[in-house]
């Protein structure tokens, strides 16, 4: 696709924004990054995502694409000659989409639940435990969700790899342990050790401090 103008409006602390950066880097796409300030949304953000006014927004040749999973598929379909993020086989492709949705719908909801300081928290933790068990099962026999290499599901699961661990630590919830979830913890280690992931995700300490300051 050559040197076409690619811009990304995002937040360094957002797992959704980081997904897009990971995908762009896997594909070797050059892009210009714009850090947004949510307390003072830029006029560009309001122009490019008038419906949700949220990040990330990918701008490709002036045309905006919003919603991280939509952006990931757009990137995969537009820059086809580079390594695929989704499998070609229809069933495997459907499964990848299913797991991405599972993480985005079910896991995030459970994480919000676990975040609460009230009785809602126990229910949230229960739900989260169930979902992590499901993911643990899915990882059996595979290095990554995508197989030997990271794919759509691994990219989507960035919030499991980094954000979840930090959140649980700050809340004093011992859940994501090697004893309870050996495969998942192994996946997290391999994932965070991956070259592109290492250079894209914020480091754990920085993120932890950010959450503490944000009075999470």
């Amino acid at each position, binding site marked *: 696709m050559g040197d076409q103008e690619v811009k990304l409006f995002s937040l360094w602390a957002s797992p959704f924004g980081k997904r897009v950066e990971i995908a762009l880097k896997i594909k070797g796409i050059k892009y210009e990054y714009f850090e947004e300030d949510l307390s003072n949304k830029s006029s560009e953000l309001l122009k490019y995502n008038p419906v949700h006014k949220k990040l990330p927004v990918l701008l490709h040749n002036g045309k905006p*694409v919003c*919603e991280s*999973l*939509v952006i990931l598929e*757009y990137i995969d*379909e537009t820059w086809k000659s580079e390594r695929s993020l989704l499998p070609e086989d*229809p*069933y495997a*492709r*459907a499964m990848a989409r299913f797991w991405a949705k599972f993480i985005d719908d079910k896991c995030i909801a459970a994480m919000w639940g676990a975040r609460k300081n009230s009785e809602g928290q126990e229910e949230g933790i229960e739900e989260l435990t169930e979902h992590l068990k499901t993911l643990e099962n899915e990882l059996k026999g595979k290095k990554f969700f995508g197989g030997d290499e990271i794919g759509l599901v691994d990219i989507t699961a960035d919030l499991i790899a980094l954000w979840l661990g930090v959140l649980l630590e700050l809340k004093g919830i011992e859940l994501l342990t090697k004893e309870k979830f050996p495969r998942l913890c192994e996946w997290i280690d391999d994932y965070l050790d991956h070259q592109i992931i290492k250079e894209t995700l914020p480091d754990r300490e920085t993120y932890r401090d950010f959450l503490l300051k944000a009075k999470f």
Partner: protein
Amino acid sequence: MVSKSGVTVVGAFFSPFVNRVQIALNLKSVEFDYIEETLSSKSDVLLRCNPICKTVPVLIHDDKSICESLVIVQYIDQVWTENGYCILPSDPYDRAVARFWAAFVDDKMVPMLKELIVAPEEGKAAIKERIGEGLVLLEEAFTKISEGKAYFGGNNIGYLDIALGSCLEFIKATGKLCGLELVEPAKTPNLVGWAARFTSNEAVKNVLPEIDRFVEVLKRIQARAKAFPDRKSWPYLPPQ
């Protein structure tokens, strides 16, 4: 279980998500068997075919199970190509736009409708207004995306038509149940025209549920939500 075509849909007649799958298969001229699932007690089929998919729709194709309606629709689009019908647009940007608005329907419109059904009387007006605002956004989207043609997908029904169109009876039934007019033709004239075309289309007309049957189902859900306030999620069934 094996159907003659190797394709089975496990569904519930009133579910817009199930209807999406049926419409997609019809557009692709794929014959399929249909199993009606009663959500109050999950059948062996549902529990057996995919332990992760706890709800309808489920597409069973050659013993493989797929769930999540929009994932299924995209699967159908990719697998069955003989009749040349394309559900998703071919251009990646147009696909992204279609996916964005389909996600809007699922993440914003559907939850608002569910919220309205179980909301106390005094809270209903505010939700109705939000639904109206959502419909206006969809009207604008339709005007832009259709470029004067009959459907979001152009001359033929496409991905976004299926995603939103499958919810038309849901919107109607919710309105009827709550005694509210959710669609205002003056504010969304193009959408109203599109809705009439969509619901009368060959691939759609025998799929969408009959409105009064749908209202009865919603009445039951509404009653359960009221009677069992500790059950937090739609459709407020007891734990299984």
